[in-house]
């Protein structure tokens, strides 16, 4: 839609960024239309934004359950399919089964955490996206989307909080 404007502003101070975000909210730009890019992980709530809900713990839990069932299958079911009598031990002993089930559960937790976080972050994503290389040099980039009618007001707000390089975001192939 033509009446929606995309804008990027760079800040050097996190305090300026947080204050600018608060003021942008006050003039009517919703939280969903504001994205902050930083080169450092700021503490929760430092930039005045709400955190997204995560499915990761559930993905990990599902992974752990799958790994446990697979380990159970290998340690408890397959010895009956491929019988091997050793040292007077029963076909399925608790200690060996516990080791196998544990290891496969942990393997599944690790793999599901990795795949889960990539899925949550929508990675890999190499296409063009709004970005500025100064982000990794310590600048904070504020990405905004707002109706064109608010353009002057947004510019004034950003400038009043020492924003630099206010302009249309460059879409870079990441």
């Amino acid at each position, binding site marked *: 839609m033509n009446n929606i404007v995309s804008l990027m502003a760079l800040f050097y101070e996190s305090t300026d960024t947080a204050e600018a975000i608060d003021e942008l909210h006050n003039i009517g730009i919703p939280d969903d239309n504001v*994205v*902050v*890019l*930083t*080169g*450092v*992980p*700021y*503490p*929760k709530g*430092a*930039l005045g*934004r709400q*955190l*997204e809900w*995560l499915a*990761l*713990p559930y993905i*990990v839990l599902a992974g752990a359950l799958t790994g446990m069932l697979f380990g159970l299958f*290998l*340690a408890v079911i*397959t*010895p009956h*399919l*491929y019988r*091997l009598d*050793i040292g007077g*031990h029963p076909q399925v*002993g608790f200690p*060996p*089964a516990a*080791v*196998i089930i*544990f*290891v*496969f559960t*942990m*393997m599944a*937790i*690790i*793999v599901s*955490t*990795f795949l889960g*976080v*990539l899925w*949550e*972050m929508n*990675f*890999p*994503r*190499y*296409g063009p*996206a709004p*970005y500025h*290389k100064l*982000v*990794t*040099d*310590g600048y904070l980039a504020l990405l905004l989307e707002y109706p064109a009618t608010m353009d002057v007001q947004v510019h004034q707000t950003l400038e009043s909080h020492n924003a630099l390089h206010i302009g249309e975001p460059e879409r870079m192939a*990441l």
Partner: protein
Amino acid sequence: MSEATTNQPQQEAHSDQISEYDERLLLAERKDWEINQAVLQPMFKTGPGFWVLVAILSSVVIWGLYAWGYLINWGMGTTGKNRPVYWALFITTFVFWVGISHAGTMISAVLRLLKADWRRPITRGAEAMTAFALMMAGLYPLIHLGRVWKFYWMIPYPNNRYMWPNFQSPLMWDLVAIFTYLIGSTLYLYLALIPDMAMARDHTSGWRFKLYRGFALGWRGTEAEWHKLHRALGIFSIAIIPIFLSVHSIVSWDFAVTIQPRWHSTIFAPYFVIGAVYSGLAALASILVIVRRSMRLQEFLRAEHFDSLGKLVLVAGMAWVYFWFAGFIVEWYGNEPVVRELIREEVSGRMAPLFYLQMGANTIPIALLVFKRIRTSPGLLLATTLLINIGMFTERALIVIGSLQRNDLPFNWGNYSPTWVEISIVAMTFAGFALLYTIFSRIIPFVPVWEIKEGRLRYTMRRIGRLLVPTAAEIE
């Protein structure tokens, strides 16, 4: 005397303290782009020394591959292994490498959970060490198979031979556990690397840009990305600790579940784990000293980091002595004939030189590391930690080879000495590890830049009485 004049010396003292702390708190006064450059620039400089080192290490690796090919062609008879010493230098080195791999998790996961800030500049070096050491360890079961092309028989899949891996065997647990730890430590290393790959992507061109762009996966540093990364690293940190404990426990059960004298012991699992931590931390300290000097990372790897690492090595060393003695006293008191013979062999027999080397190389460093001067002087720390790993390698040799030479059947006693094939293959893995690490340090940012920058956010100065002291904010 005016008040201003009275306060002047105090203010000067405070400004001295501030500048000292600024330095200690890792470049608090430096801009982010300066830190980026301080880490990236050494990666781009590869002088003649670097290429000479790569050439030497590559030559050793190629020679080791030739020896492995020779072993595959002519069979296991080319090694010194024979009845009753069926596990020899290969398994000794395998246990050693698995042990070395334990420092990465200790530093990265345990210290991350404990929020120990001094870990920040050294985590990546430790994680890389874990991954490369496990790669080297993973070669030994393959080498030890002899007929390496039959490796796939260990993978459980339905087949017309009606063969299936024996999941009751600790050797099978080993395979699965080491594979799990290798996957876990590699993914852990990679996950924490993504923001630094993006940083490197933003500051490079040519093949490096393509490489870093590929690894960065499109990272932009949005709040959501940071939040998810933190959550994933938190889960990894918790999950990888039991894996790290289980891996060396399982390696120890390879030995302990047999009825071989001196192996059949309940203390083997914690004894192996603590030995692994001891040797791994010592190896990490050695590597950090070398990398610090070769890549001029003195700003990041500072005396206080070596001091803290040295203290950890010291504690692990004391715990190792405790576990060793706890095992030894029970065996000595039991006075079983074969065990008595094995102890006699160690203390005053053929193995005595190795035994005293082990004891000296493992205990003298403990006495040395008590002194701060040893812990904070890179050269002395390097010498001390190298000594520890000589001791730990000898300890593995005594456990594996020393114990196998005597058993419950005296007619079946025998001795072992390695052949050129075994020595070459073992040298190959040492050179391979060093080669991987050398190349890694020039391609991947050795210091986790984003973690250092994050650490700087946590600190502030606070006045307590006459002093200005740095205090860390409890932030997530």
